[in-house]
């Protein structure tokens, strides 16, 4: 999850990161994986695509899920790097902490002072951390066969795509359920009317902590990739409990 103050990053002062329009198309993931499998050159990527993905009409309850969170040095996948990765496998019923994974990796770009403060990851930890290339095997094995669960798909997918391009010469695609987007469906359906703006109404925050709060989930200390992955997984369970059913097809949710 990315928490840095936008102003500190010199980004336009938007409330939340925006998604690119192209991202809103939902591919037919099983056939997309077949194509990607044929084109992939790296053995590990081939194996990842070969593991396939569930069919679009699979009920949520039967879909293997993996909650994922990256801590990054900034917002731009081309300029900034991944600092840490948290993964927790889950189903709708149970999030399994025992199979969780947590890595700190050495970013290609330097670590800014702000990132040190925010993530609590220090320069010395980074110095002794491996490069992402050393965890790719394990990472892709954990990803294989799962639908990823993230809060704001503008981070995890593009950052991993760029990181792999830089290291393997080819990127990666995979289906995600974006818990932030599920919140946006509810709270960003239409813009506030001029009257609401006149009254000074703010749109409801769809950030992770605020979204969790709406479902009466407890407050977790942010900025730890593993905790944020867990927090995202719990949010999905809550969203489904309140707004969907275990029988809802994965097609309705994934991107």
């Amino acid at each position: 999850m990315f928490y840095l103050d936008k102003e500190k990053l010199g980004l336009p002062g938007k409330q939340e990161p925006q998604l690119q329009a192209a991202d809103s198309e939902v591919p037919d993931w099983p056939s997309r994986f077949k194509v990607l499998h044929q084109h992939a050159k790296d053995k590990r990527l081939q194996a990842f695509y070969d593991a396939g993905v569930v069919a679009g009409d699979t009920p949520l309850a039967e879909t293997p899920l993996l909650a994922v969170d990256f801590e990054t040095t900034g917002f731009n996948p081309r300029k900034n790097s991944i600092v840490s990765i948290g993964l927790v496998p889950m189903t709708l019923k149970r999030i399994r902490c025992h199979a969780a994974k947590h890595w700190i990796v050495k970013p290609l770009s330097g670590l800014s002072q702000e990132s040190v403060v925010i993530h609590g990851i220090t320069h010395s930890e980074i110095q002794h951390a491996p490069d992402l290339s050393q965890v790719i095997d394990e990472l892709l094995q954990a990803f294989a066969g799962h639908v990823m669960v993230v809060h704001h798909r503008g981070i995890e997918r593009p950052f991993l795509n760029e990181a792999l391009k830089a290291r393997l010469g080819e990127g990666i695609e995979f289906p995600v359920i974006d818990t932030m987007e599920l919140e946006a469906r509810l709270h960003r359906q239409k813009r506030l009317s001029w009257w609401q703006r006149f009254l000074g109404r703010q749109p409801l925050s769809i950030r992770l902590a605020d979204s969790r709060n709406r479902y009466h989930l407890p407050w977790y200390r942010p900025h730890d990739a593993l905790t944020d992955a867990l927090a995202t997984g719990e949010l999905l369970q809550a969203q489904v409990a309140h707004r969907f059913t275990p029988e809802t097809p994965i097609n309705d949710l994934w991107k």
Partner: protein
Amino acid sequence: MEAEHLEIVDFLRRFPPFSKLPEEVLAKTASHVEVGYFKEGEQILEFGQSIDALHVVRSGAVEVFRRNGDLYNRLSEGGFFGEFGLLRNGKVRFPAVALEDSLIYFLPEAVFTELFENHELFADAVEVEDRTRLRQAVSRREDANQLMTSRVIRLVTREPVTIESTLSVRAAAQRMSEEKVSSLLITDTESQDIVGIITDKDLRNRVVAAGLGYDLPVSEIMSVNLITINARQFVFEAMLEMLRHNRHHLPVMRHGKALGVVALADIIRYESQNSLFVVSSIFRQHNIEELSTLAKDVKASFVRMVNEDANSHMIGSAMAVIGRSFKQRLLELGEELLGPPPVPYCFLALGSMARDEQTLVTDQDNAMILDNRFDPKEHDEYFFKLAEFVSNGLAACGYTYCSGDIMATNKTWRQPLKVWEKYFSDWIGHPDPAALLHSSIFFDLDGVWGKVEWADKLNDLIHRNTQRNPRFLACMARNALNRTPPLGFFKDFVMEKDGKHNNSINMKRRGTAPVADLIRVHALAVGSKSRNSFERLQDIIAANILPSGRGQDIRDALELISRVRIRHQALAVEEGREPNNNVAPENLSDFERKNLKDAFQILSNAQKFLKFRYPL
């Protein structure tokens, strides 16, 4: 490498029984946790389904039910459930429903089993049987003997009395007489260090019997190889030292300086007669004003017994003996003031004092039986004045007037024996609710002064007429159900059976009193002549009228509730507040909460059994 689940570790660390686990075990436990979300109203566990994890409430609230649909418990953050099923046969025994949106942490069975087997405190906390846990809680405290837990410094009541070694034996003896001490520490004239000790016995054996002169310097006859004890050592260690070295006096030292002297007599008095000490001073006071100064000593001896882990029976008896002594001394003084009584009488103690279950917060329930020759016109003025004298005296000593006016100053309760006999015959013969209103007071009676055998007569009458009187027993049983225990605690509230919340609980009205009431019914049914609830329970258990083990359960429940009540009174005294019977849940330890809930459950079941055992 196992991932570190900081948030989960931090959460578990905040709640027992996990808070007692070593850090590395906690981290390992956290790494095995599974998580699930349940929306408000959702069923978490159904009866009979298989269960594979201990359920811990991370956030929200959960209600746990009995199979018949009765609410069993309501849990908030940190509460856990599912342990019964896990420890029994892996099937859910108590279904659970999310009362609010709830996040549950699951502790898989393998991890739970490992914790249960390897960590005693964890096992105690989740023990299957309510009553087993309660018994452990009660017995663990009973093991603590006051000799083993009290430190020597408690016995030091004054600075040491000393004399310089160059002074004469006569001067030393004079000093001891003036100061009323049985030993004297001898100091070096220059350094002022303690160099020896002399005792009464030394004066006898080494001076008088040996025919030495009284002008001899005291250094000639003192014992020089001093056996001392550190102020922080335990009383029992002091006793062992005395036995080992055959000494009756030990200087008590701290940082090389004598703080005082502890004598064998101090230990003996401390161990067995500490409340008798208060009692003996009661009989040395000459008027109400002097007596009232003892109220603080009564409180102090109460607090001391609580801090020494005395059980409720010991404390209740000691307080009752003290209360009786006040009455006796006041009657003695009253008779001195008003002259001898015109006809014989008996002064009665009723209720908790008669049962030897008194605490600090108590009102004066008392009454008078007068001789059958009593003539109101001629005699009543005397007895009214006497009753008034005693009642005002008791009030001055901290025993508040009875709010229900059950006192000998009330004419109804100041009557000849034949009237009392008629009272009891009527109550027993026509046990309507109004008649039984005061049964918890009048059916526990004890003579404290005068013709105490009349109290025995009334007790005999009660036993004769109630034991084989199913109608009366059924009415008493109904009456004993008037006051019920709460279900347990939720957050900082007392939770009632209907799910409503209260801010505090009256531990007498909702705890000790209903237990004493139900024990009384069984006691009357089996013809027990005991008055103390614990002694009555022994008679009841021996008579075999309860299902096996239930009598012991009731005993444990009464002991636990009594101790919580007593402990909170002692705490109030120590903090300079006026003690009362109300306890707020936020002042209960987790240990007390868990065990109180069990005790309330036992009480509730025992009340149900009462209805069944004595049908109308």
